[in-house]
């Protein structure tokens, strides 16, 4: 099966600029996650979608971050305006429903550098 696709792989921006990341999950996976991974740390959940509804966004900095999942498939994560501390790898993951719920399939990640 095709894996989770993410783009762009790398992005360099200056602080206060905006950036958007795109994710296409594995076909049929109802749950989609965005994680932020800062160098040397574990992935931190930003937002979790079930189909096109938000299940958890408690850790999303809503004053600057937004995410949507139109039609329950692709998703976009946006940062506006970016801060230096947003430099990280943004990971998209999807998981199947049922007995394998919570088993995450990750994309390659989008590495953001904010100057």
């Amino acid at each position, binding site marked *: 099966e095709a*894996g989770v696709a993410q783009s762009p792989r790398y992005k360099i921006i200056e602080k206060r600029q905006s950036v958007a990341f795109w994710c296409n999950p594995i076909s049929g996976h109802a*749950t989609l*996650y965005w*994680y932020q991974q800062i160098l*040397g*740390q*574990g*992935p*931190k*959940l930003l937002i*979790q979608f*079930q189909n096109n509804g938000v*299940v*958890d966004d408690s850790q999303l900095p809503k004053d600057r971050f937004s995410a949507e999942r139109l039609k329950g498939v692709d998703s976009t994560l946006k940062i506006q305006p970016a801060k230096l501390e947003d430099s990280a790898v943004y*990971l998209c*993951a999807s998981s199947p*429903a049922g*007995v394998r*719920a*919570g*088993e*995450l*399939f*990750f*994309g*390659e*990640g989008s590495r953001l550098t904010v100057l």
Partner: protein
Amino acid sequence: AQSVSQHNHHVILSEAASLELGCNYSYGGTVNLFWYVQYPGQHLQLLLKYFSGDPLVKGIKGFEAEFIKSKFSFNLRKPSVQWSDTAEYFCAVRGSASYDKVIFGPGTSLSVIP
């Protein structure tokens, strides 16, 4: 709140040495437990998982983990490591409800010296 701690930030072993990476979690309910691995230049992938049943679970590449409920632990083991096991290892936990989120630990970097 859910949380995961991992005992070691960085482990260095020689080939053929035995490995044990510690993981403890905090969660007030039934849990699903995971170990994920990230090899250099690759994306995160599932190494093994515990949902229910036998607390000793086996994963890919000879890894196993034991769930000890009384200790809130899920330690990863391998009897003999290889150079190709050099990677970042992440322990993760979620509740057992359908939409529960997956929380990751800080990770352990394993370096295996030939």
